[in-house]
C-alpha cells in the first residue's frame, strides 16, 4: 500500500512515472515487447503491427478530438494522405523509410492545417461536418487523381529497408512499429506538459474562457490539427510500408469512425486510453471471428454472420461505453488499480 507523496527534487516532481512500482512494470513491459517477436508467429506479429499502426493514428486523433475537443470525421483521410505521400516519395524519388516517416507526417500536417483553417470561424458541429466534407473530398482525390495515386488500383511499394537492412518482413517491421509507437506515445505524453498542450486542454474545456486567458484560439486549433494529422501521416507511412500496397478503399469514412471509436472506448483525452482503445478495437474483430469459429460446430452457418455481427458489436461498444463508462477503459483500469492499491481497505 502506497502512503504519502514525497518529492525531494524537481526531477522527481516532473517524472511521468512517479513510483518505483510503475517504473518496474514499465521495464517489464519493455522486456515483454522485446521478447514477443521471438516467441510469436507470423500472424501474431501481423496483428501486433497493425495494432501499433492503429495506436499511432489514435494518439494523433486523441490530441485533436480528445484533448482539444475538435471532432474530426476525417482522420482516415489524413492517414491516407500520409500513406500516399510515402508511397509516392519512395517510388518516384527513392527516399528511404526513415526520411519518408517525417515527410509523410509533414504532408499530412499540411493538409491538416488546410482542413483546420475553417476552425477560425466555426466550431462544434459545423467544424465536424467540415471534416466530414474533407474526408469525402480527399477520398475523391485518392480515386481520381490517377497520375499520382494510381486510381482504384492503388500503388505498390518495395519492401522497406533501413540502412540496408530489409525490414519488409513482419518480424523486421515489428521493430520499426515499436520504435515509432514509443516515440509517438512519449511525444503525446509530453505535449500536455507544455504550454501548447495545456492550451489545447483549456480550449476543450471552454473555448471562450481560454481566449480570455490569452490563448490565440485559431493558432492553437491549427497546432492541434497539425500535430494530429502529423501522427496520422506517420501512421499512414507505416501502413503502406507494412502492407506494401494501398488502394482508396483502405481509407473510407468508416475507418475515421473506427479511430473515433478507439479513443472513446479507451477514454477521451487520455494517452493510455488511446493506446488501450486502439488495441481493443483492433483485437475485437479477431476475437469475434475466433468465437464464431468455435460456434461453427453447433451452427454451421455461424461464420456468415461474422460481418454483420462485427458491425453490431462495434456499434454496441460505442453506445455502451458512452452511456455507462464515458471515460473509457483507462478509467476502468484506474479503478482496478485504486482498488488494489488500497487493499485491504475500502477507501
Amino acid at each position, binding site marked *: 500500500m502506497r502512503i504519502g507523496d514525497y518529492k525531494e527534487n524537481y526531477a522527481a516532481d516532473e517524472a511521468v512515472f512517479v513510483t518505483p512500482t510503475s517504473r518496474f512494470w514499465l521495464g517489464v513491459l519493455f522486456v515483454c515487447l522485446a521478447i514477443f517477436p521471438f516467441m510469436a508467429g507470423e500472424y501474431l506479429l501481423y496483428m501486433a503491427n497493425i495494432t501499433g499502426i492503429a495506436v499511432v493514428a489514435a494518439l494523433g486523433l486523441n490530441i485533436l*478530438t480528445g484533448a482539444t*475537443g475538435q*471532432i474530426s470525421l476525417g482522420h482516415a483521410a489524413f492517414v491516407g494522405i500520409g500513406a500516399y505521400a510515402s508511397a509516392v516519395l519512395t517510388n518516384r524519388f527513392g527516399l528511404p523509410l526513415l526520411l519518408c516517416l517525417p515527410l509523410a507526417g509533414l504532408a499530412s500536417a499540411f493538409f491538416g492545417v488546410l482542413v483546420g483553417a*475553417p476552425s477560425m*470561424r*466555426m466550431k*462544434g*458541429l*459545423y467544424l*465536424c*461536418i*467540415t471534416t*466530414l*466534407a*474533407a474526408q*469525402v*473530398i480527399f477520398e*475523391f482525390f485518392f*480515386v*481520381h487523381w490517377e497520375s499520382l495515386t494510381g486510381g482504384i488500383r492503388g500503388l505498390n511499394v518495395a519492401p522497406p529497408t533501413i540502412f540496408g537492412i530489409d525490414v519488409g518482413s513482419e518480424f523486421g517491421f515489428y521493430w520499426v512499429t515499436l520504435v515509432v509507437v514509443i516515440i509517438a506515445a512519449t511525444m503525446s505524453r509530453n505535449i500536455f506538459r507544455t504550454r501548447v498542450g495545456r492550451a489545447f486542454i483549456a480550449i476543450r474545456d*471552454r473555448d*471562450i*474562457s481560454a481566449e480570455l486567458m490569452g490563448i490565440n484560439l485559431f493558432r492553437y486549433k491549427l497546432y492541434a490539427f497539425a500535430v494530429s494529422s502529423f501522427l496520422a501521416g506517420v501512421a499512414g507511412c507505416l501502413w503502406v510500408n507494412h502492407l506494401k500496397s494501398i488502394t482508396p478503399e483502405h481509407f473510407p*469514412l468508416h475507418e475515421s*469512425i473506427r479511430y*473515433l*471509436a478507439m479513443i*472513446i472506448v479507451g477514454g*477521451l483525452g487520455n494517452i493510455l486510453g488511446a493506446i488501450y482503445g486502439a488495441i481493443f478495437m483492433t483485437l475485437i474483430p479477431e476475437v469475434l471471428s475466433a468465437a464464431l469459429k468455435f460456434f461453427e460446430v453447433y451452427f454451421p452457418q455461424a461464420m456468415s*454472420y461474422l*460481418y*454483420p*455481427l*462485427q*458491425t*453490431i*458489436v*462495434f*456499434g*454496441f*461498444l*460505442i*453506445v455502451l461505453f*458512452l*452511456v455507462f463508462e*464515458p471515460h473509457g477503459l483507462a478509467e476502468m483500469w484506474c479503478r482496478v488499480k485504486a482498488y488494489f492499491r488500497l487493499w485491504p481497505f475500502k477507501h
Partner: protein
Amino acid sequence: MEFFLLLLTSGIAVGGIYALIALGFVLIYKATSIINFATGEFMMIGAYIFYTCSVLVGLPAIPSFLVVMAGAGLLGLLVERTILRHMLGQPTISIVMVTIGLSSILTGFAEMIWTSDFKSFPPLFPRAPIIVGDIIIRSNLFWGFVVAMTTVAIFALIFKYAKVGVAMRATAGDQMAAFSMGINVRSMFTIAWIFGAIAASIGGLIIGNIGGVQPNLGGIGLKIFPVVILGGLDSIGGAVLGGLIVGVVENLAGGYLDPMVGGGVKNIAPFVVLVLILMVRPYGLFGRKDIERL
C-alpha cells in the same frame, strides 16, 4: 438546353426527397439539439419494413405504408427511451458518436435479418413517365417528389397549427419557459424522435422504390449534412430549400463534370458547395448564430 432542363428537373425531384430526409433530422435537432447521424439508417429500416410487409407478407401498399409509419415511430421511441435520454447535456462528441454507434447497430441488424442482398419493391406508382413540354421525368421520381413534398407540408402544418407542434416549437425555443407553461418537455423529446423517424422512413421508402434497398442504403443519409448545413440546422423551410439546392447541384455536377473526370463528382459536389458556403457564412444560409454566455 434540353439536357440542362432534364438535369434540373430530376435534381429538383431528388432534392425534394432529400428535403424530406433532412426534415427527419431537423425535427430531432430542433427539439432536442441532438445531431442524428443515424437518420440514414432510419430510412433504411423504413424501406426494409415496407419490403417485408409488401413482398414477404403480401400486404397492399396502403396498409404496408401504415405499418412502416408505426414501425418507424416505435423505433424512434425505443431509441430515445433507451439510449438518447441518457445523453442529455453530454458534449457534442458523445452525442455524435452515440448516434454513429446506433447507425452501426441498425446496419448490422438489417444485414443479419434481411442479408446484404439487393431487394427491390413492387412498383408503387403508375409506370407512365410524366411529360412536361419537352422534358420527360421518370415516374417514380415524380411521384416520389410529390409524396415527399406532401409529407413535408403535413409536418410543417402540424408544427405550425397543431397543439403538439406548438408545444414542440416552444420546447425548442426555451426549455425552461416551456416547462413552466405546463408542457411536458420530456415527452416532446420522445415525440420529436418519433416524428423524425417517421419522416426519415418515408424518405427511405421513396428512395427504396426508386433504387431498391440494401443495408448500406443509409449511406445516403450522409448527404443530408450538406442539406441541413445549407438550410440551417433548425429550419424546416431551410431543409426544403437546402434539399432542392443539393439535389440540383448534384445532378448538374453529375451531368456536366462527371464525363470530364470519370465519375464521382456527383457525390462530392454537395460537400464542396458546403465548404464554400461555410467559409462565407459559418452558420449556414439560414442558421441562427448562437450567442454564447459564460
